[in-house]
């Protein structure tokens, strides 16, 4: 079985010379929901940006579907960045149109349905929305693509617990068995039950890749508790 995402000796050095990602090896299979977990500054966002082709590796390679990140891979990767890039002056409906123009695999009906169930007015301008609502809109846009790989950088940090439950259910029910989801977050206990595997990243390297139930079976504790142990300060 070939991996959907493959990183080999992946390294990224910024100008200060310290590698943010240091010779990282990682394979993510199709149909898996993976939690990318690590403390602040461990290289999570740098890794994600390289998978998305927003940063170029200093050394090593990252392949998505066997290809280097570029036009072809962007067609199949749906990315939720940690900060919003949506135009403040535009309305939510404008954003839907924008996504529909931009991505062949965008499903506007699905997006409208999700906006309705979270009570978000499509006519509202982005700048009038609260921080949490903006995040919900952004996530709805990203999850409404029929992509092969979803990469969600901190998808639930800014939203209230009730919406969090809805979002988690959305991830489960929208997800197709051929697609993979990478979720990067600190809120481990909220998403632990929906993950297949967890990847622990520390100082730019993978220190553990294991299924959630294997961690629970081997260590007799939740992933959240195990994370606290591994990364104890």
């Amino acid at each position: 079985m070939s991996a959907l995402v493959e990183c080999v000796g992946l390294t990224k050095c910024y100008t200060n010379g310290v590698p943010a990602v240091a010779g990282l090896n990682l394979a993510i299979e199709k149909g898996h929901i993976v939690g990318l977990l690590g403390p602040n500054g461990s290289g999570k966002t740098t890794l994600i940006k390289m998978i998305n082709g927003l940063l170029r590796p200093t050394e090593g390679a990252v392949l998505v579907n066997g290809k280097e990140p570029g036009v072809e891979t962007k067609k199949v990767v749906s990315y939720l960045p940690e900060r919003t890039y949506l135009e403040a002056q535009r309305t939510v409906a404008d954003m839907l149109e924008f996504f529909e123009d931009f991505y062949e695999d965008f499903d506007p009906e699905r997006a409208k349905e999700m906006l309705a169930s979270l009570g978000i007015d499509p006519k509202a301008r982005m700048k009038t929305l609260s921080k949490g609502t903006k995040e919900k809109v952004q996530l709805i846009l990203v999850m409404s693509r029929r992509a092969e790989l979803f990469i969600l950088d901190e998808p639930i940090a800014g939203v209230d617990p009730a919406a969090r439950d809805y979002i988690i259910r959305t991830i489960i029910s929208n997800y197709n068995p051929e697609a993979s989801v990478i979720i990067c977050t600190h809120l481990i206990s909220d998403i632990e039950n929906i993950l297949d595997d967890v990847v622990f990243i520390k100082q730019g390297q993978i220190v553990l890749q294991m299924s959630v139930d294997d961690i629970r079976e081997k260590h007799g504790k939740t992933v959240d508790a195990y994370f606290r142990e591994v990364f104890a300060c």
Partner: protein
Amino acid sequence: MAWEMDNGRPIYSQIVEKIQLRIISGYYPAGTKLPSVRDLAAEAGVNPNTMQKAFMELERSGLLTTMRTSGRIVTEDENMIKEIKETIAKQEIEQFFNKMREIGFSPEQTMNLAESVYKEDK
């Protein structure tokens, strides 16, 4: 509302127990069809692959059977359901006796106390 899960035990085995409980309590009666993996995963708030694993475990035990066209159904073997029900009930009772022993009640004292509490409730 997502299903309540205990800390530190594999999620799939907790799902197995939960579905077992639903079957023996009659929530999913013998011979009826179960929701799809995806629907039940969404209800429980768990990964669909984990739900799939739990289903396979329940199939191995014979409690569920896969129909080629209509998904999974609960076994029609009422005796099997009854046996599992009794096994689980016995386990619960043993645990209860153990707990009572820890706080200093012998099985006889526990029985007497249980009887008087039961009468009071009525």
